[in-house]
């Protein structure tokens, strides 16, 4: 309806508007977020430790070299990857199931959703301590309940494999509700008409789910899984409290190692190096994941 001139004017004003609205947010981001991160990059090239008043020494990639030669780093990297590779699929699937269950309005649904979210609200420090009690070999309710159904008590936090399982259990418990809620918000944005159209078309429940709901949910799903991938690499407090990285280093993740190196050893240079490496790793994973989703998305109208 509009002439070419009008379209161009609209586009120009659109660009201006876009940039203007982006400005305040960007300023804040750059000032408060980007600054320290640049500082971090910088530090990774220095042999710098605050454990001693020795001036920092520029050392090219020496930090990176010693990091990659250190078994403890690879162990931490492996632990973080294990948690991610096993935890994310479980949490995503579980969250989807629960979100679908909760998507229908029923009396008390508001309270139920609020109740489901409680695990996310529990301070991670407290969550760590509570799970320590719950998983206690002798005095914890989990082993007691397992005992009632004939399973012998397990030393959950004292054996390397079980300790890892415990971390996964606690993380799943605390964060699945988060994914659930975001998915619920995504589901809520799907208009009723879509479902009505599908049922008019004679689509069965499962067909509707896979062919209609899932594609519409995909963007939100991608978003939240990406976030979970990032967060799961950063999870620190509960792990530190539940196992301290132990037994031995069986549950020492990258975040725990970074903390120890940065704060117990005050080796600023090395902790910056780990952070940079972690950043690169997550970037690769995130890009791969996005590419994977984009490929599958080809053909679906935006």
């Amino acid at each position, binding site marked *: 309806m509009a002439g070419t001139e009008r379209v161009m004017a609209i586009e120009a004003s659109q660009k201006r508007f876009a940039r203007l609205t982006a400005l305040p947010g960007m300023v804040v981001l750059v000032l408060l*977020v980007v600054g320290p991160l640049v500082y971090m990059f910088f530090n990774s090239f220095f042999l710098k430790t605050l454990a001693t008043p020795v001036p920092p020494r520029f050392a090219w990639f020496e930090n990176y070299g010693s990091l990659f030669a250190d078994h403890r780093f690879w162990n931490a990297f492996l632990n973080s990857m294990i948690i991610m590779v096993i935890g994310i699929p479980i949490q995503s699937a579980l969250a989807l199931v629960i979100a679908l269950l909760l998507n229908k309005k029923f009396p008390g649904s508001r309270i139920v959703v609020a109740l489901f*979210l409680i695990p996310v609200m529990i301070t991670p*420090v407290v969550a760590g301590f509570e799970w320590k009690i719950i998983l206690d070999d002798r005095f914890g309710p989990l082993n007691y309940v397992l005992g009632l159904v004939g399973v012998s008590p397990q030393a959950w936090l004292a054996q390397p494999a079980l300790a890892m399982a415990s971390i996964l259990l606690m993380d799943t418990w605390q964060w699945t509700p988060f994914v659930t809620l975001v998915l619920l918000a995504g589901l809520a944005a799907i*208009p009723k008409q879509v479902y009505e159209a599908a049922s008019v078309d004679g689509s069965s429940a499962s067909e509707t789910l896979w062919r209609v709901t899932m594609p519409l949910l995909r963007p939100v799903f991608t*978003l939240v899984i990406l976030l979970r991938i990032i967060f799961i690499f950063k999870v*620190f407090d509960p792990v530190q409290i539940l196992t301290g990285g132990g037994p031995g280093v069986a549950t020492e993740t990258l975040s725990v190692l970074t903390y120890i190196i940065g704060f117990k050893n005050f080796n600023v240079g090395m902790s910056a190096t780990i952070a940079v490496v972690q950043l690169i790793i997550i970037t690769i994973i995130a890009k791969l994941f996005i590419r994977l989703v984009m490929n599958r998305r080809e053909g679906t109208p935006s």
Partner: protein
Amino acid sequence: MTTTELRREDLARRQRIRTLLGVLRFALILIFLLIFLFPVYWIGIGAFKVEGEFYHYPPVFWPSQFNFANFGRAMTVFGGTQALTTSLVVAVVNTGLVIAFGVLLAYSMGRFKVGGENMSFFVLSLLFAPPVIATMPLFIIFKTLRMLDTYPVLFLSYILINMPFAVWVMKGFFEEIPQSIESAALLDGYSRLHAFWKYILPLAVPGIAVTALFVFIFSWNEFLFALIFTRSHAQTLPITLAGMTGGHQIPWGEISALSLIAITPGILLTLFFQKYLVRGLTFGAVKG
């Protein structure tokens, strides 16, 4: 049999299946609820237990008495009241700041793709690095500004943690809003800002609400920055709680009590958020 009778039978069978599914749904929700809330239940009864009931075999599933002594002590002796106030102020203000600064940025990135793919990924990448490496430089900065152990130091440092997350999530929701709505408003002669305010924003409300909820929770539960940047005047709940879990004698009763109190604002907020979730549903009708 007549067609009507067949149809009635068919309808009746469909009705039975629906009821069955309904019951199944109810049962599943109940099971999940029980599993996810068991640890919370454990904390809850812990708030009423006496000292000897925590490390006891068999485990105590129902406390011997119900009094609120632990709650009282948690709020007074252990500084719970002050921590609760501090956490509330910090979380509310920080959520406000993050949403205020983030909404526009998220909108322009989601709608106009300002900066394109790279910018979007850049914002996300700000989340990748663990905050621990930012503590020392920020500490020096805040010390120079004489902001340590004040409320503002937490307002600002939490922006670092929460803003990339908020922008990223809200951007996703803005992306899903069809451009046609905006175009329609523009063609009707409304200004862009008006279009944004009256038509786009309401549709984005579920996304913004869920973001705000989580930003609140993340600020509420943040530990590291609160530990390093505050001392005694701006101590938040996580620090107080962690402090109660000292090396030796751990007052589990009081910790459980304070933890219960600590989750109340979050619950109230979620209940409140639900209203906006529903509101989003009705506005979704406009999309169709």
